């Protein structure tokens, strides 16, 4: 677990650089990556079985963290969120899915595809929930619509 936390944090830091984040925000992105995986581990170890709900919780907490950082430093929340959430991104299961398809192993492909969908949906739902709350708050503050 500790190795995963360190490795996940290092990965998030690396992705912060790959995503062109300004150097002064790189430690925050790494902290976000640490938080993301720590919350996921708490969820999957102590609360739920299966990957979906821990992913939703972790994505929501990371999104909240990014929104708060975005407000403090006046930067887009996605700049922090995108590298921070990378430990949850189903890169490995997406690869195994495609690997199984190329190898003509359709049973494994089906299983891995479902895992990939669970992670992807979990991240999307978690981040959308927090995004929606902040969007409603912004609309109330502005009393207007983005389409006006």
């Amino acid at each position, binding site marked *: 677990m500790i190795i995963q936390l360190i490795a996940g944090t290092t990965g998030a*830091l690396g992705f912060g650089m790959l995503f*062109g984040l300004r150097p002064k925000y790189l430690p925050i992105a790494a902290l976000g990556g640490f938080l993301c995986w720590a919350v996921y581990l708490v969820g999957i170890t102590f609360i739920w079985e299966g990957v979906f709900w821990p992913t939703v919780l972790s994505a929501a907490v990371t999104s909240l963290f990014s929104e708060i950082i975005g407000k403090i430093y006046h930067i887009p929340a996605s700049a922090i969120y995108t590298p921070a959430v990378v430990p949850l991104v189903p890169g490995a299961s997406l690869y195994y899915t495609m690997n199984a398809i190329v190898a003509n192993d359709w049973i494994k492909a089906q299983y891995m595809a479902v895992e990939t969908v669970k992670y992807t949906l979990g991240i999307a739902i978690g981040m959308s929930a927090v995004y929606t709350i902040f969007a409603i708050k912004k609309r109330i503050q502005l009393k207007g619509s983005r389409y006006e």
Partner: protein
Amino acid sequence: MTSTMSALQTGERVNRIEYYNALMNQLLTIGESMLTSGAGVNKVEETLAAIGRAYGASRMDVFVITSCAIVTMYPEDSCAVTQTRRILSPGSPNFSRVEAFSKLSKECERTPITLEELTDRVESIVSRQYPEKLIYLGSVLAAGGFAVFFGGTLMDGILAAAAGAFVCYCQRRLAWISPNQVVYLFLCALCAGFVISAMGAAFPAVHPDMIMIGDIMLLIPGVAMTHSVRDILAGDTISGFMRLLETIVWAGALACGFMIPMWLI
């Protein structure tokens, strides 16, 4: 006298239309650059609408999808102006650019700067490149980190980091010869696959699959796939589905690229 007045008014109207066309061109450059630098369609639509309103639009109709942006501006002192921009490349993430555009937008909302100054600022932000050494370092850290993260040993991590630097080199050198993203990702995966398979053959104690997964994280469109689902949930259905289908095809190209060296070596 009346004809002179009319000619003057026509000239003024033409100037205004030219002004708004030039402004729209800058808005679309901002939108294109933000989109190819990793901003979501929502954020791009919001930013363009806000800048347009700051420059005197009574209404802004902004429609952005991942491959196209259409903007209609309704200025209070001129007729409506519409421009379209086709976005051909998915680009590469550069959040410092997104941040700079976001700041520029807020600045313009407070006090609109002149069109000349806006053009200069936009050009300066678009030409801003992220330091190459940080991109290489990022690839090394991300590939090494995720090889260990997904269950690899420290040795797997070190070799994945070395291969990560090679993947980064391939990404930077193969982009210009690739006609599209599918070919680009296939070529990158093919090159990386050969190097990793050779590492596996040279060092029997390491786990080539773990090294591969670490390096695949650099190429696999996992973030794009996640964002596409978020776009669908947020109501940007066309963008979301377009990107989702693209990412599935990209993942397929990657798998094929990585499989060929595994079969051969």
